[in-house]
């Protein structure tokens, strides 16, 4: 019983319910009106429509669960940082649950903030940039399944999105485009420089990231999430490809612009980087998306390197997947809060001179393992 059958059942029940109305209309109304509603009824009950609506419902469920987890991540980000900084962190808003409602309070605050569009900014680009940014990030959430039978599947057999991991990484790589657009469109010299630098940093860290992921694809032999996690049944890929895991995490830090590679707030002259001219919920979207991307990164890391939902059966698979994602994110934050910021030219230096060779070494290890036939 996987998510597809569950959703298919619901949709079927719903469609039958609504069809009574169409067919009743079809009988009551005069001739060509009636035929029209009969056609609608038949179309609704047709097989294609049902499967499309099922997939739509599946995506809705998976993405909503992911977004709730992202809210949890923001809460961890603040509470955990607080305790590491030796203070309380969010406490008063919903204090019985440790200040969890602080995120919702911030969201609402950002909603009511006035939306200001700079006068000479390029309206189209200015408005489009956040849409692309958050759109591509939510796309990633939909593709990552939580377990064997809890993920977006295209038909009853539970066959997931054919090249799920590849599709996720492709969506992951759209962000630099929106950052460039945001930086350029807000018509401010400093955000332009900031946008270019952030885009350069992201692109330059994309390559080592994809190299490590390539080594995982090599070992797993397929692009789909289910096959990759299935291949990690006896041994997690993180153990042989340990260097890959480290490189993946460091590149993730650069992708998501967290402290060691925190470009926007770092610069003496780009005070806020490419998000300077955004206010209200647009900035809220940018801020929320950085956490979405770190959740996506954490989920990818668990799926590719830490054996996704494999774990002793006492805990259901989905929970295992989430536990590992949370642990990856917590270690991520721990590293973030203990390191100072890296200078701009050093960022690119590390990217090209340090991480790329490591990624290549990791790929060689993967090839060696594959050719020896252990995987």
């Amino acid at each position, binding site marked *: 019983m996987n998510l597809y059958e569950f959703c298919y059942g619901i949709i079927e029940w719903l469609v039958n319910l609504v069809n009574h109305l169409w067919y009743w209309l079809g009988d009551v109304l005069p001739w060509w009106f009636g035929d029209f509603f009969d056609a609608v009824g038949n179309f609704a009950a047709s097989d294609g429509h049902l499967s499309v609506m099922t997939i739509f419902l599946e995506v809705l469920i998976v993405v909503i669960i992911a977004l709730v987890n992202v809210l949890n991540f923001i809460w961890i980000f603040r509470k955990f*940082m607080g305790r*590491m*900084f*030796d*203070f309380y962190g969010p406490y008063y808003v919903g204090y019985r649950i440790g200040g969890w409602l602080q995120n919702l309070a911030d969201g609402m605050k950002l909603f009511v903030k006035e939306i200001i569009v700079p006068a000479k900014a390029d309206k189209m680009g200015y408005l489009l940039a956040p849409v692309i940014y958050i759109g591509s990030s939510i796309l990633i959430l939909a593709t990552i399944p939580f377990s064997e039978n809890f993920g977006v599947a295209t038909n009853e057999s539970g066959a997931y999105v054919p090249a799920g991991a590849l599709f996720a990484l492709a969506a992951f790589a759209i962000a630099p485009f929106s950052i460039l657009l945001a930086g350029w469109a807000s018509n401010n010299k400093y955000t332009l420089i900031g946008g270019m630098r952030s885009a350069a940093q992201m692109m330059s860290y994309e390559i080592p990231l994809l190299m490590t992921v390539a080594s995982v694809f090599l070992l797993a032999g397929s692009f789909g999430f289910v096959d990759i996690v299935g291949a990690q049944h006896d041994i997690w890929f993180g153990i042989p490809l340990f260097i890959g895991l480290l490189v993946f995490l460091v590149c993730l830090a650069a992708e998501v612009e967290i*402290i*060691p590679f*925190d470009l926007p*707030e*770092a*610069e*003496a*002259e780009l*005070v806020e980087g490419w998000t300077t001219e955004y206010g209200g919920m647009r900035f809220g979207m940018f801020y929320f998306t950085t956490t979405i991307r770190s959740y996506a990164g954490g989920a990818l890391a668990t799926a590719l390197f830490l054996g996704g939902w494999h774990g002793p059966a006492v805990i259901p698979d989905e929970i295992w997947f989430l536990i590992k994602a949370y642990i990856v994110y917590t270690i991520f934050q721990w590293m973030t*809060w*203990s*390191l*100072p*910021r*890296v*200078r*701009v*030219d*050093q960022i690119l230096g590390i990217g090209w001179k340090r991480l790329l060779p490591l990624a290549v070494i990791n790929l060689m290890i993967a090839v060696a393992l594959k050719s020896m036939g252990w995987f």
Partner: protein
Amino acid sequence: MAEMWINMGPQHPMTHGLWNLRVKVDGETIVDAQPEVGYLHRGIEKLCEGKTYPQIIPLADRLCYGSSLTWSHLYCMAVEDLMNVEVPERAEYIRVLTIEMQRIVSHLMWLAAYAGDLGLGVGFVYTMREREVFLDLFQSLTGARITYNYPRIGGVAHDLPPNFERDTLRAISFFEGRLKEYEDLFEGSKIFMMRNVGVGLLKKEDALNQGVTGPTLRASGVSYDLRKDRPYSVYEEMDFNVASRKEGDCYARYRVRMDEMYESCQIMKQALKKMPKGKWRVVAPRNAPVGTGLARVEDPRGEGMIYVVGDGSDKPYRVKIRSPIFVTVSAAPKILIGYKVADVVAIMGGLDMCIGETDR
């Protein structure tokens, strides 16, 4: 990119306090730098000419609010030199104790700002937490946290509160443990070293010629410390060694200040041990004779001097204040040229700027 002037203006996240650094940038590297000061000029020297001698002590506190006790003590020493008032022995020891504690507090505030600049939020919060321990001690001794108004002409305002020695010794041993931990936090991470070693080089000749004093000078190889070379108050009885390094870059300045904090702990312990009983204050005359008074003190930021001219009345005729940071900032172009714009944060943070005393 053509050369353009970037204004790291008065309201900039990088500058601590109100001053403006105009930097001419060619692409990424700095070609020329022009510091501009004067945004916080309150005309303290003119104010002093309108107030009586005891009234100026709270004003002297507000010269450099980061290390206010050293400045009011410096003012009291200058006026005592003018009125040649003999300060009792116990008052001198209390003054040395509080100056060294103030040095630790001032260096901790510098370390917090420096770590915050480099992006290490944790560094900021931990140093501020340690600073609270000493601020509580000051609160019980003098009654205030930042501007103490504690030294008086002819001694100090209050005696030590009950079991102040025990609390101070406990605070010192606690702080020495924490100082070791900072080694891990700051020098442990390679990124901190990457941002500091070899950045903001100040050669020995430039430092001497530009009149730079204090930890910045000692980090460039000249081990000159007023407390050791021209000891005032009771610094003769204290034995401590002067922290100095050869390299003259940001890391050396950081290292010198960390060692100075360690030395200050030793001095405080000795001061507490050797402190005699007895009077802590002498009645100071109301009117000062005609003449001049001069005092020189090793401020946490450099060599602070006050030159007082008395004219027989109860108000000083002229008070001239030498602020170490006013001179160190004039040497900023020498240090900055040739480095990246991203280094300005580290270099200027390393100089431990305090704008209150620069603009007077």
